[in-house]
């Protein structure tokens, strides 16, 4: 273990008022940004607020803005982001700040629902499973986007979301695309209507902040491109309401 300190600037305050406050945190060999934040709360300033749950990259609760970029803090090793020993940690942009580093995510999830990002069943619990081959093209497309942890990193890194409050955003649209390719789903028309238009996929300018920052290496840009094609041709044929 090295006898060094990290200089960490942490946002203290709510969404409107606050400031970055500096703390010195001992540098450790195996140290994630979440560990740094935890250290401050446990040993320096117990009033610091932040959110986490699983601590291994599964729940998507711990996303913060680290040195300017949105990241999952539980799996961001300090050596990767702060080779110079300086770290700034703030709440995710765009989301409402509860306090310090913890944000509220209801807009994010409400948009998920608004994008029809949920399954519409055509069968029941008393029916058997659909036989879907893993090699089927649609199944492959659905699988490619399905492991989203809902961390909101893509959302927070997209300027269109910042510019257009009603834009559904990359995560919700990515989920919708997996469903568009889900042959079991019975809600396709409603979904296309939900995700078309200027609050939906057509607002995306392929900025690709989402792909760039998604910790799960998902590709919302490609998913949204798929939605754009499908909906635009549906619109051409008058298939949208």
């Amino acid at each position, binding site marked *: 273990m090295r006898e060094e300190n990290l200089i960490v600037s942490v946002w203290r305050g709510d969404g409107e008022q606050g400031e970055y406050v500096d703390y010195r945190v001992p540098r450790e060999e195996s140290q994630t940004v979440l560990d740094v934040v935890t250290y401050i709360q446990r040993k320096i300033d117990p009033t610091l607020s932040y959110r986490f749950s699983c601590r291994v990259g599964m729940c998507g609760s711990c996303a913060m803005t680290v040195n300017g970029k949105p990241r999952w803090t539980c799996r961001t090793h300090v050596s990767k982001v702060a080779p110079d020993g300086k770290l700034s940690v703030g709440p995710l942009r765009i989301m409402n700040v509860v306090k310090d580093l913890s944000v509220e995510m209801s807009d994010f999830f409400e948009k998920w629902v608004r994008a029809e990002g949920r399954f519409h069943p055509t069968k029941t619990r008393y029916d058997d499973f659909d036989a879907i081959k893993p090699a089927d093209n649609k199944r492959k497309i659905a699988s490619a986007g399905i492991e989203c942890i809902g961390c909101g990193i893509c959302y927070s890194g997209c300027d269109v979301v910042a510019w257009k409050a009603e834009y559904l955003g990359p995560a919700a649209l990515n989920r919708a695309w997996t469903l568009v390719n889900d042959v079991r789903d019975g809600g396709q028309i409603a979904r296309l209507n939900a995700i078309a*238009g200027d609050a939906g996929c057509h607002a995306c300018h392929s900025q690709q902040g989402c792909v760039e920052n998604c910790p799960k290496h998902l590709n919302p840009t490609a998913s949204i491109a798929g939605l754009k094609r499908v909906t635009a*041709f549906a619109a051409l044929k008058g298939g949208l309401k």
Partner: protein
Amino acid sequence: MSASKIQVEARLWLAQRLSAFVLALGVIIHLVTIVYAVRGGLSASEVVDRVGGNLGWSLFYGIFVVAVAVHAPIGLRAILNEMTSLTSRRVDLLCFIAATFLVVTGLRTVLAFHHLRVG
């Protein structure tokens, strides 16, 4: 009956992309010709010689103008909606004016060239 808002949005998006395909071809041809044309200086008579009264060129530039008039205002519309606080109705109006303006000035020019020799 007028189509719904999302129907319109989706179609506008498609119109912009289709016009972009047209423009892509058009601009490549245009760029090649201007690079070729400016070689050794440019004069009015040269341009007129090349383009004036040639139905092919007139059609080409005619299509180009229409494509631009579709493409650019839809692009500007997105920008104005995202980056200014103008209401979307104002933006639509502005962009409609821009589209009309582009068509009128553009086609007027193309026609003028066409009539040079023909007329």
